[in-house]
């Protein structure tokens, strides 16, 4: 967490706490710093505190304790309209009684910008989101995707340095969402804007962000680039929350610096990478990604650890095959394999041997 030096930080949360009722902390001791131009996603289940953090940054909620700094300046006591932060809301919050152009002109108008300059900027913003012809329409006459673009354009039209987005794509269908994910990241990078993006959709988080902060229980569980987050989850919550994951329960019987031996509850011994376990006798959750499990014996590493598994179900998914296995007492052990010409098709009832590389098998907190 010391990867970004504090003096470069553009947005910074310093030991921020938030409580609504004086009894329960919704945000517990949050520390976060973002450099300029970064696209950071706050990811987490609902109630994890991510939206509260965003609202504190926007100025709609006040921090109970701690400081929020923007470009080095504490902003705790600056009202939202003076923070100059662009924001895209979950349901777009386009003003229904104004046309698209009036919506876009609104932030410029309140900044007392002249009409010609205003019109120019509105036009440019509309062109930027490829909505140049829609200036005269009302929001209700636009599709969800179009409204989303307008909301984005409105948040950007007054050229803020920081843009906050609160689940902006939640109401769109899958295809449109994927398209907009791409557009938003493109725009953010092209314009060099610092973006804080809140979502509960992990795919969105992984595909769009420079870094992802995984929230749970009012804390950041892990803050890392997407690949690191997926491949090296820091704890069992992150492992479980990001991507598909197989878990086996057991106890540490041997521990070294970069490997350990875990005795599963069913009795088998397996090798694993110790992540946040340190003592013999600790309970652990061993986590293996489905696509890292190998059951094609020819492809298996000769020194890989193998374990017996019974095939329970085969699911054909087009590009991939998916198998549900029973492994060491876990009936929901998922294995995925690419639909390649040499792919092995397993039949339910079959007993096979599966294995993985020890570094893909992470021993995490129980």
């Amino acid at each position, binding site marked *: 967490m010391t990867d970004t030096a504090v003096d470069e930080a553009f947005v910074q949360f310093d030991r921020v706490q938030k409580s609504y009722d004086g009894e329960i902390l919704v945000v517990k001791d949050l520390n976060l710093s973002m450099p300029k131009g970064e696209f950071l996603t706050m990811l987490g289940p609902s109630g994890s505190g991510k939206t509260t953090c965003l609202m504190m940054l*926007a*100025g709609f909620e006040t921090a109970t304790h701690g400081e929020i700094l923007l470009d080095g300046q504490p902003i705790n006591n600056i009202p939202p*309209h003076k923070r*100059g932060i662009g*924001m895209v809301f979950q349901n777009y919050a386009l003003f229904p009684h104004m046309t698209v152009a009036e919506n876009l002109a*609104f932030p410029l108008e*309140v900044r007392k910008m002249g009409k010609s300059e205003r019109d120019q900027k509105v036009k440019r913003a509309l062109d930027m989101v490829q909505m140049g012809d829609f200036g005269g329409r009302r929001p209700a006459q636009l599709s969800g995707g179009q409204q989303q673009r307008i909301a984005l354009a409105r948040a950007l039209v007054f050229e803020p340095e920081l843009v906050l987005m609160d689940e902006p794509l939640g109401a769109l269908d899958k295809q449109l969402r994927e398209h907009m994910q791409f557009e938003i990241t493109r725009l953010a990078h092209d314009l060099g804007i610092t973006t804080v993006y809140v979502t509960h959709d992990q795919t969105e988080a992984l595909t769009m962000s420079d870094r992802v902060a995984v929230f749970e229980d009012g804390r950041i569980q892990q803050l890392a680039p997407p690949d690191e987050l997926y491949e090296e989850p820091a704890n069992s919550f992150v492992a479980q929350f990001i991507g598909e994951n197989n878990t086996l329960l057991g106890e540490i019987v041997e521990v070294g610096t970069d490997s350990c031996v875990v005795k599963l509850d069913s009795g088998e011994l397996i090798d694993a990478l110790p992540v946040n376990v340190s003592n013999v006798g600790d309970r652990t959750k061993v986590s293996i990604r489905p696509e890292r499990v190998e059951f094609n014996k020819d492809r298996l590493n000769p020194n890989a650890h193998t374990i017996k598994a019974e095939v329970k179900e085969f699911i054909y998914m087009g590009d991939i095959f998916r198998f549900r296995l029973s492994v060491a007492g876990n009936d929901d052990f998922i294995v995925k394999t690419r639909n390649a010409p040499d792919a092995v098709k397993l039949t339910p009832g079959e007993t096979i041997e599966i294995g993985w590389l020890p570094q893909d098998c992470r021993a995490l907190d129980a």
Partner: protein
Amino acid sequence: MSDTAQDGPMLAADGTTLKQSLARSLRREKMRALLLIAPLLIFIFLSFVVPIVSMLFRSIENSILQDTLPETVVALENWDDQSGELPDEEVYAAFVRDMLVAVDAKTHTRLGTRLNYEETGMSSMFRRSGRQISRLDPVEDAPFKDKLIDIHDGWGDVNTWAVIKTHAVPYTNGYFLNAVDMQRTPEGAQAQPESKQILVKLFGRTLYMSLVITGFCILLGYPIAFLLANLPMRSANLLMILVLLPFWTSLLVRTSAWKVMLQQQGVINDTLVWLGLVDDAARLIIINNQIGTIVAMTHILLPFMILPMYSVMQTIPPTYVRAAKSLGATNWTAFWRVYFPQSIPGIGAGSILVFILAIGYYITPEIVGGTQGVFISNRIAYHISSSLNWGLAAALGTILLGAVLILYWAYDRIVGIDNVKLGG
């Protein structure tokens, strides 16, 4: 495919046109829907449409003259009411024959009441004459002209017969003329004498004061509705109960309470005198005038303004204001440019409700309005229950109904009726 397209309408499988078979399949559903709403339709028809139509009808219906004096009316056709001469014996004889029947059926006094609306004195003339005419014989006692003039000298007045002739039409515009301070005379429609002109003034006052009351309701109701919509649930519920509290008290009690508050020896004046703001000898007159009516009616109608406003405001997501602020708007700009325009449908709905209720009020103006704060409805009530001039009351009611419809139409043209929301 191309055949049907060229030859005419699309055909269904059995050869009937597609439209027909669609209509047939929908008919059963329509019938069922109709049956479901039938009780309501019948109820509305009986309790709303029928009374309104009968009110409209009563405002022009005037068959009493022809029904009571059929022969006289025919005989009077040959008499020129501008001649300045009394009708001839034929009319008097016909009148006696008609009156003998009418006295028997006791309808002559009713006719007298009807004609008394037009010409003062007719009521007693018919009542007094009836008894004496009933002793006459239609054949043996002829001629009647002098005998009738003996019975009551009104029968020797050209004007009496002119009034009968003028109003002997089955459908009359007379009530409507009366309703706008005019009268039906032998010389056509004419203005009432100035000393009797009051109804147009009352119409104007009713509309003007209802607008003022609606305005005050908006001013007072908006902040409360705003609070209600934005407070946390528990405090909002408490406030809502306070808003609804007046609903649970009878109208009469509330109005009387205002009397206690506003009168010269009342709570407000006492307080002001005690505080030294007002001299004891110069207590404020804030009741039995327009102020009294406006204050009491604003209070009574306030919930009707608050509730539609509240239900509209409740549907305005807080994110709009947040969005406006994030875009750089101050609290006031965010409210005025973003929140307020979206709450206008609630103001519209509340205003229409309050205005229409206000122009129909009469108990409250009667109690606290004195002479300057009464409405046209007070006159309607007078003509319904005291003067029994139901035709005039119906004409006044019809004009009021028309005024509401015109205002509603104007509102639709200016604001758009789609902009009226009761919530949702």
